[in-house]
Structure formats: C-alpha cells, structure tokens
C-alpha cells in the first residue's frame, strides 16, 4: 500500500476526532494530531484502535508513542503492513 493510500484512509479515520476543521481540510503529511488537528489526547487512543481495525494490524507501545503526526503514523502503518 502506498503512503498516499494510507494517508487517505488515515484522514477518514481521524475525522470524527478533529477539533480544527480548517487544518483538517488542509491536512498534509506534516499535520500534527494534537497541535494542528486539536485531537484530544484521550481520542488518540481511539485513532490507534481504529488504525488497528482498519489495517488489521497490532500496534505495540513503542510504535504507538510515535503516532502523533500524519507522517509518523503512515510510517508505522507501512512498516507493520510490510512485516504482516
């Protein structure tokens, strides 16, 4: 799966938790979940669980801690899919 396809799927996943619509509309790989999209940290757990369900992968703690931006999350997903 290419980074672009993963990012598109991720955009759909984060949408319900976003608190900054304009930054969401202009989402890029550099977008930060907490500062740019203003996702509440308790909902970051939901993003991680939704990602696990959508891509059928399991994310360990040391990967989860990197998942604070679009780019970092796409990288984690891509790596997990490669080793599946």
């Amino acid at each position, binding site marked *: 799966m290419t980074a672009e396809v993963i990012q598109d799927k991720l955009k759909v996943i984060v949408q319900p938790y976003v608190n900054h619509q304009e930054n969401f509309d202009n989402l890029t790989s550099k977008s930060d979940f907490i500062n740019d999209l203003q996702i509440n940290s*308790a909902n970051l757990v*939901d993003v991680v669980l939704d990602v696990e369900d959508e891509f059928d992968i399991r994310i360990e703690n040391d990967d*989860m801690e990197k*998942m*604070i931006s679009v780019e970092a999350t796409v990288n984690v997903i891509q790596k997990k899919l490669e080793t599946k």
Partner: protein
Amino acid sequence: MIGNDIVDLKKAKTDSNIFRPRYMHKVLSQNEQNLVLSSPNPEEEFWRLWTMKESAYKAFQRKLNFKSVFNPFAFHCKLMDSEKGIVHFDGDHVKTTTIFNRENYTYCSVSCSSSSRSFIANSKEELVQNLRAEFGESSQPELLKLKNNLPFIKIASKTIPASITHHGIYFAIQF
C-alpha cells in the same frame, strides 16, 4: 516541576468509551486496570489515573526537554489516598494531587516543593481574569508556546513557565 491536566467528566462520557475493547490495554498497566475495574466508579478512577499520567508527562517533558510523544503506558501510577498519588517514569517520579469535582471534572497537578499556583476556570476569559487578579489589573497576561510547544505566561518583561489544560468547558493553569 509543573504539569497539570483536567478532564471534563461530562464531555469525557460522550467523547470516549474507555470500555471499548483494548482501550485500557493501550494506556494502563495490569495493576492500573485492576484499580479501575475494581472501583465502584470505574470511569472516575480511569480519568484520575489518566490525568495523573498526563500531568507527569507534562512535568517530565519540561524537565527533560523531550519532543512530544504519546506514551501514557510509560507512566506508572500509585495511589496514596483519595487525593495524593505518585507517578513513576524512567527511574524518576513526581507526586501528584487530584481534585475531584464530582460529575463535573477531575483535575490533577504535579506537586512541587516550591509554591506553585493553580486556577481552574469555566472559560478562557475567566482564566485570564484570575491571572489579572494575581499579577495586577493592569497586567496584560499573554499565553504563549515556546520550544516543544511548552506553554508560558508573558507578563510585561517576565516570561513564566506554565502548564495549561483545557477540556470541554474547563480551563486550568498551573505556574
């Protein structure tokens, strides 16, 4: 050290389902999960532990100057009584104090040896009013974020480290 976190319990009820499968496993150790599941009020207990972890994270981020990460599982909570707690992280620890306002909010702040102040407000305006009352009516307290997005209060020529938290209708600051 400063670090604080507030959870609006009404908002938390609608925004998060802590009983969602695997949710607690992502953020709590087995001991912490047992505390939540054996509590007469599991949600309150969960948010107590969560705000302790978040407060400690903010305190250690400022102390150790690390970039933002999302690793609540790296912080281990020990409850001393209904308010006091200890959070262990990476061989170090901080003490915390929790204020419960039943059905409204759970507020946690890291306790430090030097005198720190905390304000809890129902709006950003009220928070700024509290700061004006503290620093003088003519002061123009400004909230800003510097390196690693760490917050500070700027008043005249002084820049004071602060921890700021906002959830639902609540705002709180510690400095």
